[in-house]
């Protein structure tokens, strides 16, 4: 098919794609205006990007389109006609399908079972021979395919993401909403999937609305962009005519952002962290970390990149003492480090694990108590190691809350009531307000807004400049490229590639991430 002729502006040639338009859509939850008079138009056959920070109202908008929420004001037009959508089923009937960030596949069912059961008209008795035959034929007509008869639990994250998209196409949904579809994919898988969707949109088969944070994907694959900020439409236009700087200004407004801390060259430090032949087994007794070797010197950030699920979380959990290390050892300055609380104190090791509310905090304990986890049983917060002094604890917490700008109603508020950025700041306050020799960081900025991200990254660089050895495990390649002095790639539980930041590039790292 001649794709050059079929521009997205040619709805007459669009075969089956549908277009939608929101008109003055608002959603108010109590006193919170989550969405304020947003009108966006997505034409048939268009690949449209929806940009915005966390909490900007992207998911509220999409949930209104999908029928999970009823908009307080405003209408939805499908192909120019007003179409009220009251349930997700109405959206499905209108041909609007969504691929969620978390998977909605049923793990114990096979790919074929998942696809058939999601159909609106499942026969009471399923003739698997016929269904599998039809699914095979459907897969042949699609640009990518996944194994049909394996349980979904055994598929890789990339295959699951592809299956989610295939499922929507199998259901004949011609307007696809994708919520950050590439976060679990390698760069090359992401390019493959987005490229194919782009081609299908060009051919007029589908219309795509993609929620994303990644400017690279916006410029490479999408036609138009709409930006939301604080629930309002902040701007948009044709991708070619907007620069990345324009888009980021629309996203974050004119707010002042703390500049990345200056990186001091050649920091003097005597610290050395060595991970020697570490083996960590997962719940199913399979080595998730399989003989990993890595050395990190003081004054250096080593960024470990990798597709999620290659043993990164197991590695961080083992280093945090949440999981036993089955073989190998961790050495700091040549001495054995046992990942226990006393080891953490002795070697001045600190950590910022991913999902801090789950891994680094007790959600229902107060902010002050959470901030005191490293010090509550030591003077001056305790006598003899067991007689605690809550007043001293609260005082110290109050000081740190102010210094690290944690927004909390009081020191006694349960930490689970704080926003994600403030939980992360409270943990930063606990972990970084000491003399740090070794810092273990995992996905520190996941799900945070721009301002918090810049601040947290600056804190990490500060620690490096002060001579700490920093291990940064992240699924965000941009974060790794921004922060690291050296980049390592983790694939199937091993470090497969290490290079100084100046001697590598995104493509090389991507190739190793894909396991080549």
């Amino acid at each position: 098919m001649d794709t050059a002729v079929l521009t997205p502006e040619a709805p007459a040639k669009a075969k089956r794609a549908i277009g939608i338009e929101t008109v003055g859509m608002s959603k108010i939850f109590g006193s919170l205006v989550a969405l304020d008079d947003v009108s966006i138009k997505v034409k048939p056959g268009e690949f449209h990007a929806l940009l915005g920070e966390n909490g900007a109202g992207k998911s509220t908008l999409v949930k209104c389109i999908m029928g999970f929420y009823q908009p307080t004001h405003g209408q939805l037009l499908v192909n120019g006609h007003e179409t009220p959508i009251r349930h997700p089923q109405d959206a499905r009937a209108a041909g609007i399908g969504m691929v969620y960030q978390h998977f909605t596949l049923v793990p114990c069912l096979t790919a074929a079972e998942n696809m058939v059961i999601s159909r609106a008209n499942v026969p009471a008795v399923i003739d698997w021979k016929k269904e599998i035959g039809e699914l095979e034929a459907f897969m042949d007509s699609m640009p990518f395919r996944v194994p049909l008869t394996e349980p979904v639990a055994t598929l890789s994250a990339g295959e699951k993401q592809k299956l989610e998209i295939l499922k929507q196409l199998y259901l004949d949904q011609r307007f696809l909403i994708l919520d950050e579809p590439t976060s679990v994919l390698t760069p090359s898988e992401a390019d493959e999937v987005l490229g194919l969707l782009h081609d299908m949109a060009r051919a007029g088969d589908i219309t795509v609305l993609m929620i994303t944070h990644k400017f690279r994907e916006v410029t490479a694959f999408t036609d138009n962009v709409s930006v939301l900020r604080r629930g309002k439409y902040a701007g948009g236009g044709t991708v070619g005519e907007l620069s990345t700087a324009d888009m980021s200004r629309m996203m974050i407004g004119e707010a002042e952002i703390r500049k990345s801390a200056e990186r001091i060259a050649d920091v003097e430090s005597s610290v050395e962290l060595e991970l020697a032949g570490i083996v960590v087994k997962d719940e199913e007794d399979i080595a998730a970390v399989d003989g990993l070797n890595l050395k990190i010197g003081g004054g250096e950030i080593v960024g470990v990149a990798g597709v999620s699920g290659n043993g990164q979380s197991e590695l961080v959990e083992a280093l945090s003492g949440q999981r036993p290390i089955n073989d190998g050892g961790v050495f700091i300055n040549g001495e054995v480090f046992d990942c226990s609380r006393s080891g953490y104190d002795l070697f001045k090791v600190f950590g910022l694990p991913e999902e801090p509310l789950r891994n680094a905090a007790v959600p229902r304990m107060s902010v002050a108590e959470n901030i005191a986890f490293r010090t509550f049983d030591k003077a001056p917060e305790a006598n003899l190691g067991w007689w605690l002094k809550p007043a001293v604890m609260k005082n110290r917490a109050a000081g740190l809350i102010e210094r690290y700008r944690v927004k909390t109603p009081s020191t006694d508020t349960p930490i689970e009531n704080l926003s994600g950025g403030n939980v992360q700041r409270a943990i930063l306050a606990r972990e970084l307000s000491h003399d740090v020799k070794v810092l273990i960081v995992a996905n520190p900025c996941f799900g945070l807004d721009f301002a918090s991200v810049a601040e947290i990254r600056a804190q990490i660089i500060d620690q490096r400049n002060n001579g700490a050895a920093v291990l940064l495990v992240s699924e965000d390649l941009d974060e790794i490229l921004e922060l690291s002095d050296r980049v390592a790639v983790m694939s199937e539980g091993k470090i497969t590639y290490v290079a100084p930041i100046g001697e590598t590039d995104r493509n090389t790292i991507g190739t190793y991430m894909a396991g080549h």
Partner: protein
Amino acid sequence: MNDGILATILISMLGGAIRVSTPFMFVALGETLTEKSGRINLGLEGNLVLGAMTAYAVSYHTGNPWLGVIAAGFAGVFLGSMHGIICSLPKVNDIAVGIAMMSFGTGIAFFFGKPYIQPSAPRLESLPLGNWSESSSLRQALDINPLFFVGIVVAIAMWWALANSRWGLIVRMTGDSEPAARAMGVQPHQVRIAATAAGGFLAGVGGAFLSLSYPGSWNEGLSSGQGLMAVALVIFARWNPLRCIIAALLFGAAGAIGPALQSVGISQGYYFFNAAPYILTLFIMIASARSSSSAREAPGELSITK
């Protein structure tokens, strides 16, 4: 001589296995269905006892034991749907409700069952499948109650339906991923209430076997924890109805060791051998707690695996 004794023991264990396994099989199949939908019903012991009482009473009043079996099933549906509905209320724990339902079921069975301890009700006729044999012990062992075959048919039908029917897929989907089920417009609570009620029916039928076939009378000590052991059996069978048959036979055989040994005159350690099913339960629980494949096959929404 020794061969003769061994053969006698094996034959009476076979007969015992078939007899004792039937209630295990029904309760385990009911529990499998319930757990496949993502709920645990620990109250099936109550269904078993109430089913036994109901079956005996209805059989006594109508003179038709099969009507008793059906009535026992509906007594099970009553308890099962009660469990299902209570557990659908917000923040209700299915395990705690199960234990309450167990006490409730046995309690009302004892309350209404008092007048039926003395009278004798018509029992289910066994099928004499061993008539071809010379050996009387083999003939006795092959005197099989039709409910045993019903159980096997139910197991096969359930196994088939879980893989090949819309209902089967919906039950498995609900049991493995509630968000996915909701996303497809399925109401998880309704599916679970239905699955718990249907599971309760099967457990009730299992109870009918106790009072109408073997041991074959109604009294308050009729069930000795079969309903609870069946829960362990489901884990052992890894939520597969076909494996439930095998697991039930194994438990039945273990339960038959004591009587079998006694039948050849070995009464030493009788009580120890009678405890065999309980010991087996203990070992199975330890072994399956360590088995990762069992963890993998457990439905994802079960409150104990989450």
